[in-house]
């Protein structure tokens, strides 16, 4: 798609479709100076500094991207309002973690996510560390293929990107890489069990 999305629906569609469309859409959201300034202003007036605000904006976009791709974003809501809410939620949790701000009655729940606790933050970090540990053992090529698959690239796009002959070859490569990742998770001593425990 060569047309640059100009409204929120188009941005959402572009993120869902993955590939370069998603990249462009995220860049457009990232470049929204008005919203970014609003987030930075919120963080600065709630115990943080401008760098914290910049980080929160970026972390908010990461959550937004995933929620859109996973269908958690309700399209009747405003994309900007949603992103701003995510950033506020993230900052309140971060501020609690760093004990930079006095707690207020302001809600810190978001999309049904439970309120922040030190335990939940610890489990989240530990889970990501374990998952990263497994990924680090995979060859780069497989990681790229799996990322494209997760980002909804078509098999023909994966084939083109990876220099494979056709869709069938791409599908086979994706299958092989995914099996290899799952075997690594299974083979790693206790990792599946730890992931299971941390999930509870």
């Amino acid at each position, binding site marked *: 798609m060569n047309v640059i999305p100009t409204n929120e629906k188009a941005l959402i569609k572009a993120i869902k479709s993955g590939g370069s469309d998603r990249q462009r859409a995220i860049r457009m959201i990232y470049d929204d100076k008005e919203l970014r300034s609003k987030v930075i202003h919120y963080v600065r007036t709630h115990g943080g500094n401008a*760098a914290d605000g910049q980080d929160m904006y970026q972390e908010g976009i990461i959550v937004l991207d995933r929620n859109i791709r996973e269908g958690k974003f309700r399209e009747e809501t405003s994309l900007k309002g949603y992103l701003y809410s995510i950033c506020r939620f993230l900052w309140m949790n971060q501020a609690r973690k760093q004990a930079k701000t006095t707690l207020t009655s302001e809600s810190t729940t978001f999309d049904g996510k439970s309120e922040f606790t030190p335990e939940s933050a610890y489990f989240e970090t530990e889970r990501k560390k374990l998952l990263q540990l497994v990924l680090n053992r995979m060859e780069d090529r497989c990681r790229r293929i799996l990322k494209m698959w997760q980002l909804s690239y078509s098999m023909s796009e994966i084939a083109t990107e990876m220099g494979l002959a056709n869709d069938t070859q791409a599908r086979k490569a994706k299958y092989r890489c995914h099996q290899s*990742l799952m075997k690594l998770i299974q083979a790693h001593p206790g990792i599946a069990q730890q992931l299971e425990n941390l999930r509870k």
Partner: protein
Amino acid sequence: MNPEKYYDRIEHYLSGNMSEEERTQFDQDSRQNPELQQALDLFQFSQEAIEVEIENDLRSQMKEWQAEDSTSKASPLKVVSLRRRILSIAAAACVLLLLGTVALNHSNNHYTNEALALALYSSPDLSTNRSGSPTATEAYNAAATAFRNGDFSLAISQLSNISDPSNDALYLLGHSYLRNREASKAADLFRQLSQSPDSRINEKGEWHLVLALLELGQDSSERDELLAKIQADPGHSFHAQATQLQDSLNSIWRKFTR
């Protein structure tokens, strides 16, 4: 457990393309068949792992955009032209008052020490790690994850436990202090790195020492001398940023900052 046995069915289930009837049947089967449930969990863990990588990629991409923004624009100043014909002194006063407010806001948004440090700051490349021993590498990786997650205190604690830290570990520790609002400690570390014989390290040390001193709010001779030194060396990795910072520090807008 053999995850291959259920692969296609699980993929179909998670893709959301199953009919309502098929989904109900799958949910029922997974409750009754522990092997299927385990295969489903494993599939989902693997997807989470891929998501971690996607998150990291996107985070790095946005840091790159941020760095590009900071090098491509100092903070473009738009010249505001006043109309030639000002009808009355009152109108002129209003315009001047408005301009004054704009100037004050503009200055405070772009020219305070904090705003300048932010505009020119970029997170470190966390994929570079020459930490040495397996224990040190493990601590570095844990710190890098904590840094990515914005938990700078944890990153500091992990890195401080390394008995013989590499330059990469010290560099990340400096960044962690800087982000944790402990600019004085960050400055000490970057000062130490600026003395390294390795130019890749000492240049990073010098530039980030400038930023840490800026963050400290000190108009110090150390900062000015270092900035002048970087500016005078066109081959310095942070030459462009230093020039940009010096221009901003010399700007008239600095006089309006609070």
